[in-house]
């Protein structure tokens, strides 16, 4: 029927990597293309498509790394992306990555790929993990049952990749087919006659439509007339009318029964997988009682590594040591010698100089903190602890009207709010996306800022740290609670895949940290320089004085801070970590007392994270929503700071 190996590569043909969430698609992608896509141990790391290229038959073929899906009938925005690639792109071959130990779930997608009539091969990844649990899969039998090539791999150890590369030139069409019973089959037939030609089979589209796939609507509109669409809807309603349960569920059920049968035939459990240390540790991490000490230990280690080692030891070495003792004096010396003009000298090494301010802040204060944070965070991501954290705090989030899944974007926000705002795509309803975006923009401090803040607070007292943490959490909670009351819409269910706890792979941590640091240097440092230039210009033309005077009722009167803090807030509009760095410098110079440190930090924490974050907000949530949030956030930040100042004064608290 079909020719099995057509090694001829036509121009524009693509390879798509698909599979369930957290099965290692990005690892396989990186091995094929040599491009690094973020790899972690939790579902939903990839929310957008990454592309790379692979040499096939002497030609470059584009390879897509797609967000994970459990079925090709999408339920959230990131899942639509994956289905649309199969529907709209010219896909030469689909590489389906399956978690070997969870074959049953992978087969659901296999069946859908077979239905679509796309050529595909199956990669049984994490072969080692299945083994250590005493699970064996008979790959020959499996290949026969699903009618395509099956390749066992261990992605992180690069095992099986050679075989995979060799199979990529094949073009095998699976022979697998399933019948869904006469009532559904009848509906499929009726729909098929109405559907246009496309890259995937009519049958598969008919089944998606019957299953109630709303995300196909735009595609239908492009290809059919309104009256044809109307007919399609009537057929779907008619077939659904014959079933008590939703058709999507009936169809899934049929597929699962079939995949269960296949799994039973090819699976062998040759020993009872005993509870290993990682299994037990994984249990404890989400245990109602033991989970709390585990969380505290994790937080403590993070604090020691990032807050103490990064923000104090390393910053001390770099800021006072390297920059304070060597670079800055040396540069000052050089400029005095070579640049006679005081204007340009100040531009480089003055109070608002590019070297003395922008580079010192970004390289000496923030970089060590961000660096250590990225390492710690990478370890957390790869260990599989984050989803367990989501379980631990689920109840608190539920009170807020969100659910535990919202924890992931929020925790990711501690790394970078901009990236986390993108991750909000895994949330299923519009309401949840808006609330998460708002909370990220308002309250969740990113690593850069967190580092500066911890560094400052560590220098004040533990009580001050605790006070700052409590206030920020309280604000997040209150705003989240109110926002989910005010914003209309539904909340989605909390069903959540928990990946096994794993020992992080060193090379991945290194890669991830380096690519994040590179990103930080490329994105943040230029903004620091821009911010410094603005301050420098304002200072030189005398505007800074005027702004300080104008802002004085707020900064001095309301917040009770010195006038100098105005500059920090000003650059805080660009990047709040930069603002925090400005405050850090003020505190170091002894110009802020402990109360003022806490008040100013609370205020700056509640700023919008950075310009990049704002742009992503606009892109993801729309202009009006984003601007609305900003209009709320800045005044609110000052309000909270002011109220805190007032309360501290009223109670006569001296931190």
């Amino acid at each position, binding site marked *: 029927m079909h020719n099995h190996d057509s090694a001829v590569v036509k121009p524009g043909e693509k390879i798509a990597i698909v599979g369930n969430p957290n099965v290692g698609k990005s690892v396989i992608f990186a091995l094929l293309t040599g491009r690094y896509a973020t790899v972690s141990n939790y579902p939903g790391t990839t929310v957008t498509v990454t592309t790379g290229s692979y040499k096939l038959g002497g030609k470059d073929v584009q390879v897509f790394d797609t967000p994970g899906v459990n079925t090709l009938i999408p*339920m959230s925005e990131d899942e639509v992306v994956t289905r649309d690639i199969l529907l709209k792109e010219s896909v030469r071959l689909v590489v389906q990555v399956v978690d070997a130990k969870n074959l049953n779930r992978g087969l659901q997608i296999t069946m859908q790929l077979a239905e679509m009539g796309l050529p595909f091969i199956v990669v049984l990844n994490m072969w080692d993990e299945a083994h250590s649990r005493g699970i064996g899969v008979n790959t020959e039998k499996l290949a026969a049952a699903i009618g395509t090539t099956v390749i066992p791999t261990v992605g992180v150890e690069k095992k099986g990749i050679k075989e995979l590369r060799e199979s990529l030139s094949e073009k095998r069409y699976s022979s697998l087919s399933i019948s869904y019973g006469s009532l559904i089959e009848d509906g499929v037939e009726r729909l098929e006659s109405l559907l246009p030609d496309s890259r995937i089979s009519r049958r598969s589209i008919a089944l998606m439509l019957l299953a109630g796939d709303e995300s196909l609507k735009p595609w239908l509109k492009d290809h059919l007339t309104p009256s044809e669409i109307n007919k399609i809807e009537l057929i779907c309603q008619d077939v659904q009318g014959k079933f008590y349960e939703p058709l*999507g569920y009936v169809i899934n059920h049929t597929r699962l029964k079939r995949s269960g049968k296949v799994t039973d035939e090819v699976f062998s459990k040759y020993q009872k997988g005993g509870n290993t240390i990682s299994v037990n540790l994984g249990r404890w991490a989400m245990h109602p009682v033991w989970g709390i000490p585990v969380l505290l230990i994790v937080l403590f280690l993070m604090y020691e590594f990032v807050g103490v080692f990064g923000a104090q030891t390393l910053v001390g070495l770099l800021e006072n040591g390297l920059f304070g003792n060597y670079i800055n004096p040396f540069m000052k010396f050089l400029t005095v010698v070579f640049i006679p003009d005081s204007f340009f000298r100040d531009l480089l090494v003055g109070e608002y100089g590019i070297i003395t301010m922008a580079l010192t802040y970004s390289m000496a204060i923030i970089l060590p903190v961000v660096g250590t944070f990225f390492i710690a965070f990478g370890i957390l991501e790869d260990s599989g602890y984050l989803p367990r954290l989501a379980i631990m705090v689920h109840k608190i989030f539920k009170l807020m009207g969100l659910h535990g899944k919202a924890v992931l974007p929020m925790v990711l926000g501690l790394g970078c709010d901009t990236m986390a705002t993108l991750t909000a795509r895994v949330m299923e309803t519009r309401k949840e996306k808006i609330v998460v975006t708002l909370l990220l923009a308002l309250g969740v401090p990113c690593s850069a800022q967190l580092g500066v803040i911890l560094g400052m607070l560590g220098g004040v007292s533990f009580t001050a740290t605790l006070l700052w943490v409590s206030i920020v959490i309280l604000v997040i909670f209150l705003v989240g609670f109110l926002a989910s009351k005010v914003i209309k819409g539904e909340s989605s269910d*909390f069903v959540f895949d928990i990946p096994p706890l794993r020992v992080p792979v060193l090379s991945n941590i290194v890669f991830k940290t380096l690519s994040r640091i590179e990103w930080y240097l490329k994105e943040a440092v230029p903004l620091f320089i821009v911010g410094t230039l603005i301050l420098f210009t304002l200072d030189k033309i005398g505007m800074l004085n005027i702004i300080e005077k104008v802002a004085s009722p707020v900064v001095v009167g309301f917040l009770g801070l010195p006038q100098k803090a105005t500059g920090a807030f000003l650059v805080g509009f660009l990047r709040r970590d930069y603002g925090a760095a400005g405050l850090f410098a003020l505190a170091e110079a002894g110009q802020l007392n402990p109360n003022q440190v806490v008040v100013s930090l609370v205020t700056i924490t509640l700023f919008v994270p950075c310009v990049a974050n704002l742009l992503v907000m606009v892109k993801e949530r729309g202009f009006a929503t984003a601007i609305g949030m900003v209009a709320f956030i800045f005044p609110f930040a000052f309000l909270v700071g002011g109220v805190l100042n007032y309360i501290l004064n009223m109670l006569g608290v001296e931190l």
Partner: protein
Amino acid sequence: MDYQRSKAQFEEDRIDELLELIWMLREEGDATIDNVKKRSEDPQAGHIINVIEASGLISSDHGKISFSEKGEKRAERIIRRHRLAERLLFEVFEIEEKQIEDPACELEHTHVLSEVVVDSICTFLGHPPTCPHRKVIPRGECCRKFSLEMKPLVVPLTELQVGEDARIVFISSKYHARLDRLSSLGIIPGSIVRLHQKQPTYVVKTGETELALDRELAKEICVKKIMPE
């Protein structure tokens, strides 16, 4: 039992059979006299249709049959008995799907299972919404009260003890998206789950997949415990 009484009963049973068939055809959207004649095993189906139409249980219009209020009630009770009987045989005695049809047919008639007994079975089974063939079971008085006075065989997942294994019998959710989501993760009737924990959220393991579930969802997943051997 005297001849007259059993003859009358036999006639009643034939009427029941036809009412049941009409109900099923209606579910499929095609309750016409032609279809009834085609699908009925009763050689005199046409005659019986006339009898039940004359007794005011059904009415027909251009060959399309609809129930009267009285007929609807009676058919609903038959269907409920039949499908609950199927569930009972399937869940308790674990008789295969294919083999439960005949005995269930015997159990569906009024003289075999009284209303009270039917409600007890329903309660015992945890008020299932569908039969093993996934057709809807009409609700009874007991379901509206959702009485749990009797210790039911089929319980919500939330009633399990931590560490217990259970087989999912049905999921009684009215939200389509929820059923879709659960089924895409492998949570469907027939799946075996082990309850790992109840706090802070429910955690179950099915196959090699570990899932966290909110209590709200766990409540809707009805299971039958698997006794350790």
